[in-house]
């Protein structure tokens, strides 16, 4: 039995607490009375992973066993979650590799030879061959990639998209043609947070802009409360409608996996422990890490963090009918990540770490930092937000004006052109989204290079729309002032300054909650 997540109230004996801030972390002294929400400790992982996968495939929920769905002469497509999951990337072998290998073994046994494997990257950047190999493993890569049977989904390849139809709300469902015309589509998922999986996999991962714009828009994002609860999220409602429609046209066999909270490698294990439980070894590791990072050049620091691999344990693998599988998945994610929190607070403090779903092997630019803090972490709640309506959010991140031109070319223009015009999601959506989404240069880079789609920075901004709508003040500690102001926020040099600045919004004695992630947690706010 794992220990549940822990909620601590800071008192005189509470040591300084770790706060992540980009490629580094600081030890912060919080005011007395601050509520600190720790993520639950890692659940034990399944020991016989391959056995668990085999069992899931042979004993699926709401579906016949996989071998019964396979037959000679069929068209089989296997889609898998792209590089944006999990975070950090897991130590090899990747769970997706282990699943795909077993699926392929069963397919071969059934005489299936028309198999294609596709990265469900939607409007994310194309994965490099090395990144594809990292996920599917050497054997699968060597067998499929040279023949062109392992590839990235191309949401701008009109000839290879199929408009399947519209939902009863008029939402276009357009997905990868090969997947839509297959006899069986198998989706291999990594469910790191409750937001992922279910009908978010196929209708979003293999979709085009025409389809995605129905739920990836400012209105839907503001009305998704929260992304971590698909029953309350307008974005998920749309995806569910699309998924149910797709299920009528296409046989989908969903395989979902859940991971535990083991996100940091051995040298950084102390980051997953509560500070007041650090032993001598943890103290020494922390000291070494801080000193090392302090003197390391920026490039080296970047490489250290981006090179981190998480020794996740697999907590569950389920296969079969999408919704039945997802119910089990969500239960498992909740079991690992849910922490009960009593009531809202005036101020929410968040440390934004070095990595988000969209800067793997890349740079976390200001828009991604905002998305990570106000999009992902702010929305890590169930019930109601951790911070009250009109409260303040204080985030830690350097927010450097640093962009990866290869991966995020449209982000630079978004930052320079769009955010200087307005930061209001609905305004920029109306004024700029279409332009960016159809810009031939961004489309060219998306299709031929490794660039996120032109519209992607809009989506990242929309992720934060609910938070921006909900809170009265957003203050970044230790951030580049110019960048933060460009985004319509404020910068402070310390927590004390930030609280002083927020006092106009929340008063001089606000209640404060610090969500100490990563690893992931979902605050179940009662």
């Amino acid at each position, binding site marked *: 039995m794992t220990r549940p997540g822990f909620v601590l109230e800071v008192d005189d004996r509470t040591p300084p607490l770790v706060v992540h801030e980009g490629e580094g972390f600081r030890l912060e002294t919080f005011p007395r009375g601050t509520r600190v929400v720790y993520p639950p400790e890692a659940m034990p992982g399944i020991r016989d992973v391959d056995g668990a996968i085999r069992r899931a495939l042979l004993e699926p929920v709401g579906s016949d066993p996989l071998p019964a769905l396979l037959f000679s002469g069929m068209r089989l497509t296997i889609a898998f979650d792209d590089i944006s999951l999990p975070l950090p990337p897991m130590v090899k072998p990747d769970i997706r590799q282990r699943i795909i290998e077993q699926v392929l073994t069963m397919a071969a046994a059934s005489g299936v030879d028309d198999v294609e494997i596709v990265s469900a990257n939607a409007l994310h950047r194309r994965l490099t061959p090395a990144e594809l190999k990292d996920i599917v493993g050497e054997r699968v890569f060597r067998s499929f990639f040279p023949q062109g049977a392992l590839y990235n989904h191309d949401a701008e390849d009109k000839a290879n998209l199929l408009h399947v139809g519209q939902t009863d709300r008029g939402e276009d469902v357009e997905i990868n043609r090969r997947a839509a015309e297959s006899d069986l589509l198998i989706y291999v998922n990594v469910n790191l947070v409750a937001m992922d999986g279910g009908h978010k996999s196929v209708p979003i991962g293999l979709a085009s802009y025409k389809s995605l714009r129905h739920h990836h828009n400012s209105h839907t994002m503001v009305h998704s409360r929260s992304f971590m609860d698909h029953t309350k999220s307008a974005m998920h409602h749309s995806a569910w409608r699309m998924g149910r429609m797709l299920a009528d046209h296409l046989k989908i066999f969903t395989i979902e996996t859940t991971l535990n909270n083991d996100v940091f490698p051995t040298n950084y294990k102390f980051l997953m422990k509560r500070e007041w439980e650090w032993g001598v070894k943890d103290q020494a590791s922390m000291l070494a890490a801080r000193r090392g990072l302090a003197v390391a050049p920026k490039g080296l620091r970047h490489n250290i963090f981006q090179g981190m691999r998480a020794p996740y344990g697999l907590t569950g693998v389920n296969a079969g009918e999408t919704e039945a599988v997802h119910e089990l998945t969500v239960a498992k994610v909740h079991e690992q990540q849910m922490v009960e929190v009593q009531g809202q607070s005036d101020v929410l403090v968040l440390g934004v770490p070095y990595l988000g779903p969209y800067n793997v092997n890349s740079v976390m630019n200001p828009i991604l930092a905002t998305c990570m803090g106000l999009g992902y972490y702010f929305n890590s709640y169930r019930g109601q937000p951790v911070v009250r309506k009109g409260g303040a959010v204080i985030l830690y991140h350097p927010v450097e004006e640093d962009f990866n031109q290869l991966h995020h070319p449209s982000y630079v223009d978004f930052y320079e*052109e769009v955010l200087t015009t307005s930061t209001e999601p609905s305004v920029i959506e109306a004024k700029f989204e279409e332009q960016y989404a159809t810009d031939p240069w961004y489309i060219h880079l998306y299709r031929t290079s490794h660039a996120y789609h032109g519209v992607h920075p809009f989506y990242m901004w929309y992720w934060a729309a609910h938070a921006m709508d909900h809170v009265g003040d957003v203050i970044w500690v230790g951030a580049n002032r110019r960048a933060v102001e460009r985004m319509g926020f404020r910068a402070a040099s310390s927590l004390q300054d930030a609280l002083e600045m927020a006092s106009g919004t929340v008063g001089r004695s606000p209640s404060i909650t610090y969500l100490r992630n990563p690893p992931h947690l979902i605050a179940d706010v009662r």
Partner: protein
Amino acid sequence: MMLALEMFRSIPRFAAAKVSGGRMPGLLVGPMAPLRLVTRDEPAVRRPGWAQVKPLLSGICGSDLGAITGQTSLYFSALVSMPFVPGHEVVGELAEDCEDLPRGTRVVVDPVLACAARGVDPCEPCQQGRTNLCNHVTVGHISPGLQTGFCQDTGGGWGERLTVHRSQLHAVPDSLTDERAVLVEPLACAVQLARRAQVPAGGSVLVSGAGAVGLFAVLALRELTDAGRITVIAKHGRQADLARRFGASDVAAPDEAMRAVRRTTRALRVAPQGLPAPAARLTGASEMLLGGVDVAVDAVGSTSSLDTVLRSTKAGGRAVLSGMPAGADLSPAWFRELEVAGTYASSGDAFDVAMRLAEQAPMDDVVAGRYPLHRWREALDHAQSAGRLGAVKVCFDVRSRA
């Protein structure tokens, strides 16, 4: 006798100016300037049609600074006569009757010294009314000089008197203040520019530079053409504000220029391969667009500005050179079949149109600095850094002794 600033021939000073260029303005307006404040005879051309003018305000133009800082091409050395009193953006009062204009009339000066002023038979361009292209700027009864302000005999606006031919004079209506009237000459150049730009209806335009030339170009393009989106490259905040006020659709910083044009025109961008950024800059291998604006205007005259203009104009488009251009890689002009058009001074009714613009346009605070002649070092220093200091036009207030 009169007080005047005089530009004189000094090879060491010219060389020093050339070397330090615009990078060390302190030197150029200090002991190394090929410019001096002198007391000299009043200029006078004793021929019919000529009269003396008492300057009220005289603008400091980029071409004046170019001459002082040694940036002007030697091409022009045959077209000036030393020493001369600079200053060709002039509003003044007639000191004597001039044909139909009585003494005391407030006038602005079209500085071009064409056939009529030189007393020679009109050349072909002058016959066509294109006096700015006159072929006779070195002959006739006055010394060589393409304009008033570059001619030994006529004087210029940076002195207490200059002499002007009737063909160069335009009476200023009472409704126009001196501060607006002094802008008529550069505005006339902008009118000429707008006409030379030949912007197609709804066409996209890039104006590289938001100094006086660039800003007035925006104004003229917006007023006189059916240009669609006008993107302006502005270095400083106030320039950006003024550009928008004058009609720019978008304003971008110089380092964002190519990206901004690419975005507004939905062009494709091509970057040089395999070169680190510093090497790319040194070798001129900078990024370029496939596609781009219909018309691009270089309103700076620097290599980087001209490069930006040539590299961001769409195939078959038009690159307009306003002011004296520096050297640049002409490959895009060849490869993209660009029409490269120069625009120099003004002709036809440009002054009348400019007068109207000067009356109507929102330009009350465009003249930001007024200096007496004896504070010429401060004045030039201010003009040299005008953009950074938030100024558009710096002037000599020739009447002032304060």
